[in-house]
């Protein structure tokens, strides 16, 4: 039994390594971010990439989509984008004399929703059903989305003019929020070198097929989570609800997301069990975007990420007690 589990974890690790190295041909020096996107992919979550322009958010999403060999669609959000532009429409086919459903760009395995905060709240809301229930309802007709289904949304936190902040319900549906950050000096030099002749994205081939991905997603759920680790994740989520600087704490969906993400991270790192380091590592990317800090904390210049880190540093890790 142990041997089988070990083989399974090695299989997942092998697939993760293949994907990471493939994406790294385009995205230089951002292994951790790629790993987090992969975590979301393996637990059927969605990713919000938040960073300043020109960092490579869209490039990352495209590289992941190309590496997966799945269908890929892109939605460029603008204030005049309508929900029907995303979900699709029912139109009257005069030849057939009946209404037919024309699917929108959401009907793909990987959907890049670029600059999501530029869409109006009405359009943003049409994504709620897609993200949580993996289906769309158009004119009383409900259509299931293809599996695997992953939304990679990007947003620019700096340029806020003409944007609509994402509501909490929407943010809570993103499993992870990641940032890319500026590359180091060496990495930036490497980027220039790689893009000198041609765009490496054009030569990117798929390394994992959709069926294999679905199988890996199932296997990730079998990663062992010891009861004390589960309690540790719950303790962190509960601590956010009583922290003095937090107005809105983490939801049960957040703790569930942390639990699932830790399983995926463990599998990616070649383990068939979750350790406290996984939970700690994922606490900020999983929880920070779901919390609302109090105004006083904002005025003191504290970010939600800092507050989550502080919470994690106060929660007791389940380790052997000294007797």
């Amino acid at each position, binding site marked *: 039994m142990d041997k089988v589990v070990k083989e399974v974890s090695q299989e997942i690790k092998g697939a993760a390594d293949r994907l990471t190295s493939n994406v790294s041909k385009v995205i230089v020096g951002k292994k951790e971010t790629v790993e987090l996107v992969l975590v979301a992919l393996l637990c059927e979550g969605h990713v919000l990439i938040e960073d300043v322009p020109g960092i490579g958010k869209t490039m990352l999403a495209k590289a992941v989509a190309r590496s997966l060999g799945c269908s890929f669609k892109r939605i460029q959000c603008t204030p005049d984008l309508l929900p029907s532009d995303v979900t699709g429409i029912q139109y009257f086919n005069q030849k057939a004399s009946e209404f037919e459903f024309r699917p929108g760009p959401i009907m793909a395995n990987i959907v890049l929703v670029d600059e999501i905060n530029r869409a109006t709240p009405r359009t943003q809301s049409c994504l709620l059903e897609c993200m949580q229930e993996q289906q769309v309802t158009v004119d009383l007709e409900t259509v299931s989305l293809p599996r695997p289904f992953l939304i990679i949304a990007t947003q620019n936190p700096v340029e806020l003019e003409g944007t609509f902040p994402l509501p909490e319900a929407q943010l809570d549906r993103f499993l992870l929020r990641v940032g890319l950050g500026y590359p180091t000096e060496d990495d930036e030099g490497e980027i220039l070198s790689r893009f000198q002749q041609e765009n490496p994205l054009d030569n990117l081939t798929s390394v994992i097929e959709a069926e294999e991905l679905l199988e890996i997603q199932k296997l990730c759920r079998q990663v062992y989570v010891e009861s*004390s680790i589960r309690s540790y994740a719950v303790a962190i989520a509960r601590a956010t609800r009583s922290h003095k600087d937090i107005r809105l704490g983490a939801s049960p969906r957040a703790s569930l997301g942390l639990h699932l993400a830790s399983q995926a991270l463990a599998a990616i790192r070649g383990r068939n*069990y979750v350790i*406290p380091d996984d939970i700690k590592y994922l606490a900020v990317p999983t929880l920070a975007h779901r919390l609302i800090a109090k105004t006083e904390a904002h005025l003191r210049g504290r970010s939600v990420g800092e507050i989550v880190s502080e919470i994690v540093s106060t929660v007791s*890790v389940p380790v*052997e007690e000294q007797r």
Partner: protein
Amino acid sequence: MKLGWQKGVLYVAIIGMEGCWLYALMALLNKEVGGACLSVHGMLIVYPLAFVFNMLLQHLRCPKACIWGVSWLAWALSMLLIVKVQLFGDLPLLDSAWLLSVPRSIAEVIYTFRPELLILLGTGVMWWLGRRLSYLKVDFGALVSEFQFGLLILLIAFFAASQLRVELGSSVPMVLTFFLFALLGISIAHALEGTSWLSGLYQGHWSGLLLITISLVLLLGLLISAVVTPGFLQLAVAALKWFVGLILKLIALIASLFPEPEPAELPPATPMPEMEPSEVFKMWTVPESVRSGLRIGFYVLWLGLIVVALWRISSDIFGWLRRKLAGMAGAEFESLPGAFRADVLGWLKRICLRLLGLRLPIHLGARTRAMLPEIASVRQIYRQLLRWATAAGWPRHISQTPYEYLHALAQLMPEAQGDLDLITEQYVRTRYGALLLTEDELYQLRQSWRNVSQNKLRKRGKYKWIK
């Protein structure tokens, strides 16, 4: 080999071992306190019967309390049956005399120990052992424990028999049978663990060698039993007596060289006046029942004093050993303050709870979920590491994970980083992954902990390690 067959042999081995020491014990008690009127073989049937009966009961889909009740009811019936057959064979079945003999023997226990009581206690113990065996997870550890315990009981029984001048009869075949079952059971259990040479390439050779060794041991035992006969022993004792007599004669010869002292004359003894007991003395005469109670209390007091004295002496011996070991190079002694006291208190608490029946309905027949020894060892080693590091001024913060703490420890002892890595890695595997370590991995882990602890000893002065 099929698993069922192997398990069956292991059960037979345990039954054989326990049967041997039970036989020795029961034979001794039968001759010493039972008046040698009981058939030990007849009583021993209860033990395998209890095992089989309780094994069958486990397949019933009944509440545990119900199974427990049925099991002990069956014991009561079998005990009464043995009383009837062995002591009251001539009485009719419906005669109340033999039925009342058991409670009567309990009531008269202060004054006399009757054979009925021996049957009650003996069959009770055997039934409990058989029931315990039916729930026992039979593996290598269980076989070794049974062997050690059985050997101890056998030695105690033989020692007691020699002191009380009780002839146990078939002691040699009993010992040989005990060792036969023990060797057979332990070797098969070891092979079943999968780490034995019996499961390797040369299992045929080794199995043959094992059988030859067992045969040789048995032959040697038979040879010794043939040579060391009572006549031989009497001859040896006579030789010893002659030698002692020779020494005494020599002492007498030396003593005769010195003059004897003249005996002093003693005054005649004064006769004691005859005194009659006063009325007050008669009034305050303590009744027999109170005196019995006081006597029991007195014995308990003595027993308590002996236990306390043993505890004190043991503590002193351990203290002396500790001082001695502390002075040896490369050796260390880790104190466990309060561990013995905690064990004794835990033991007493368990007994009290059992007697009060508090845990009985809940845990009846249930196997306690004890931690596996491999996991317990790993966790114990990590706990020791934490304790040592805390004493050195590097306590683990509550929010530190084992790997984060490893970085801190590596700063403390960079030369032991490999060993610390291994200890942390294995701890994480067993603690969070519930993975069992192999024998080799456990050995490596213990070796690493030894290296780390020796490293710490060398740095005692530098880092102020725990004394």
